[in-house]
């Protein structure tokens, strides 16, 4: 039978090829070559509203850094591509970045961060992103993931503490979350926290279906549960829709937005309906005018941007890139070869990274035992269409 013969032959040759293959790729580089970093961005996908602003902030940081001499006279080369929150696409781009000898990766969402978690560990590439899922902070499970700000779970805990205090009495909270790992990340931790601390809060949770144009049905359910507060773990646009529907149905619940809806995009999109709602936000918006904002404002003004309309996702992108750049700087300063493993070690041992009061209490610090860069966040409220700080530097 020819068929089997041909198959056997092919298998045989393939098997011998197995023994022969073997080529290692060398990472890093010397002297004044640019430092390649892979950036995964969602500009046009489900989270594109905040994702594009985050990406702009990152690239602006790189632009600014390079204009001021880069890192020890080496330019940072950010390779940024839109993956539209499609996970297979993110994986494909990631492989491209690895092949282009990136020394670090900047991701975006919980979806891509988790999908690439084992890969970055295998390829030894430090990975930061806009995802603050709690399990990424454990170096035993995610050795190369770094979480630069308070995790979603910490934000939810801070939110629950605030709610308990604000209500003063028995109350109920409905957590409405994005229908994805990003959305569900803090839900169980928030429930456990309430139980652990003995807070007098009833917690229910509902997934917000994607692409819904009207949340009144969900809101009547929330109302029926007797919830006084709605904690939202979603991006700005659906949260704004929710706020509008809440205003239309004259509901008296107070929305408490976590990181990704607690920004100016939410305020602008919801308009009047945003007034009085609360936000747990680890990243100080430009309106808070922290020392760390000066560089961003200067850059925006020099490049035709408007600090008044720039959302804090921009700030978050800027300082996330800053954290990675500082890790790279520390690696170069210690005269080590610029590899992912060395950057990881530098990030773990370099001490606090200063963000000028922008991230939580102002500093991000990693250690070999914990990749939780910070656990503090501020409470903000919406007043006259602006985010106003109620209380800064809160920890769970």
């Amino acid at each position, binding site marked *: 039978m020819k068929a089997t013969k041909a198959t056997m032959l*092919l298998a045989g040759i393939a098997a011998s090829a197995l023994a022969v293959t073997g080529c290692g790729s060398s990472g890093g580089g010397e002297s004044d070559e640019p430092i390649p970093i892979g950036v995964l961005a969602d*500009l046009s996908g489900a989270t594109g509203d905040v994702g594009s602003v985050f990406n702009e902030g990152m690239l602006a940081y790189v632009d600014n850094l390079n204009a001021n001499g880069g890192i020890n006279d080496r330019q940072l080369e950010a390779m940024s591509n*839109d993956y539209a929150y499609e996970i297979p696409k993110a994986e494909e781009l990631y492989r491209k970045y690895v092949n282009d000898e990136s020394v670090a990766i900047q991701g975006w969402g919980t979806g891509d961060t988790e*999908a*690439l978690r*084992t890969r970055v560990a*295998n390829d030894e590439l430090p990975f930061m992103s806009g995802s603050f899922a709690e399990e990424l902070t454990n170096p035993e499970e995610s050795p190369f993931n770094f979480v630069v700000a308070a995790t979603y779970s910490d934000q939810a805990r801070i939110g629950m503490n605030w709610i308990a205090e604000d209500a003063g009495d028995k109350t109920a909270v409905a957590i409405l979350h994005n229908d994805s790992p990003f959305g569900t990340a803090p839900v169980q931790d928030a429930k456990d926290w309430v139980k652990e601390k003995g807070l007098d809060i009833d917690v229910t949770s509902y997934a917000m279906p994607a692409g819904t144009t009207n949340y009144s049905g969900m809101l009547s359910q929330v109302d029926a549960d007797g919830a006084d507060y709605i904690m939202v773990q979603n991006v700005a646009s659906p949260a704004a829709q929710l706020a509008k529907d809440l205003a239309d149905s004259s509901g008296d619940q107070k929305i408490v937005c976590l990181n990704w809806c607690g920004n100016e995009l939410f305020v602008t999109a919801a308009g009047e309906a945003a007034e009085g709602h609360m936000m747990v936000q680890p990243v100080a918006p430009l309106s808070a005018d922290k020392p760390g904002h000066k560089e961003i404002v200067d850059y925006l003004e020099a490049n035709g941007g408007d600090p008044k309309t720039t959302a804090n996702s921009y700030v978050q992108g800027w300082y996330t890139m800053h954290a990675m750049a500082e890790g790279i700087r520390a690696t170069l300063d210690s005269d080590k070869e610029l590899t992912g493993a060395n950057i990881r070690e530098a990030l773990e041992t370099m001490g606090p990274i200063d963000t000028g009061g922008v991230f939580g209490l102002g500093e991000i610090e990693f250690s070999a035992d914990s990749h939780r860069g910070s656990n503090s966040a501020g409470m903000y409220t919406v007043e006259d269409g602006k985010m106003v700080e109620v209380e800064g530097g809160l920890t769970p």
Partner: protein
Amino acid sequence: MAAVETGRYHRTYESQLRLWHTRPQLIRIGVVAVIAIIVPFVFDNYWLSLANTALIASIGAIGLNVLVGYTGQISLGQGGFLAVGAFTSAILTDRMGVPAPLSILMAVATTAVIGVLFGLPALRLKGLYLAIATLASQVVILFIVRRWNFLTEGQGFVDVSRLEVFGFKIERSTFEQQWYIILIIVTVLVAITATNLFRTNIGRAFMAVRDQDIAASAMGVNLTRTKLTAFAVSNAYVGLAGALLAHYSEIISWEKFTMDVSILYLAMIIVGGLGSIAGSIYGALFMTFLPIAVRMFGEVIGGVVPQVQKQLPAVEHAAFGLVIIIFLIFEPRGLNRIWQRIKDFFGFWPFRY
């Protein structure tokens, strides 16, 4: 040249049963084999990873083609069935310690069984109605994957440890190369078994059902059994692709098995050629490399028309739609038919036919 022959004469049963009869066919197989062997030495890791993705897609596309192209039962549930294969194998290996080859086989069996279950509506439904029924399977399976906490232990994803086969573990430095070898062998086996399937009475019954089910039934083909067998066989292949995908990507979440994936696979077999094993492979290769080609095109003309590069995913979607429309209009039988026409052109030259 093949076409100069006046016919194929078989003097033995064995010669009649061969897969490849003519010298050009054998030469072609040889050339393909040589290319397949050269690939891991020529491609860098990135291109090899694309080749690996395309090989997994080929297996899935062959599976879908068995159902859609050969049996005429349209299916929009591909993503869901891939998920069944992926999650079964991942959970068996990772949480229950079943050796990978065994867990992959069990994933194949599980997907086949679940495929039969969701194939039941096909006994009564045809065409568009069946499409909607299989769409339900996609939605139902994905709903279960997302909501059933047991599957992902509430994490939303499952980690899969590095593939280990009989004590041989894939190495990090030659990850893509070793996977390529595994995948090329599996793909060749799948292509050969699938090709042979359609030389048996079962496979011919599939095609009879596709062409005219009432006539097939009048000839003594058991419609119920044939349709369900088609669902089982097709989904066995799809389950294999899903299981391999799980082990290859080392982490799985429902986000890899959405409706988009089902449509992508349908596009693969339309572009490649409905009712053709080789076409499934051409289609899988084509659809895997199309976005890359679009991106490279975007990089080239990005300086002139920056919008193309800025809106790359949108441009990709447009290219995707355009390709399907072009194929449906100009060559509904896909790349495989184009290849045949090229062969005929040279074979019959200087005559038209």
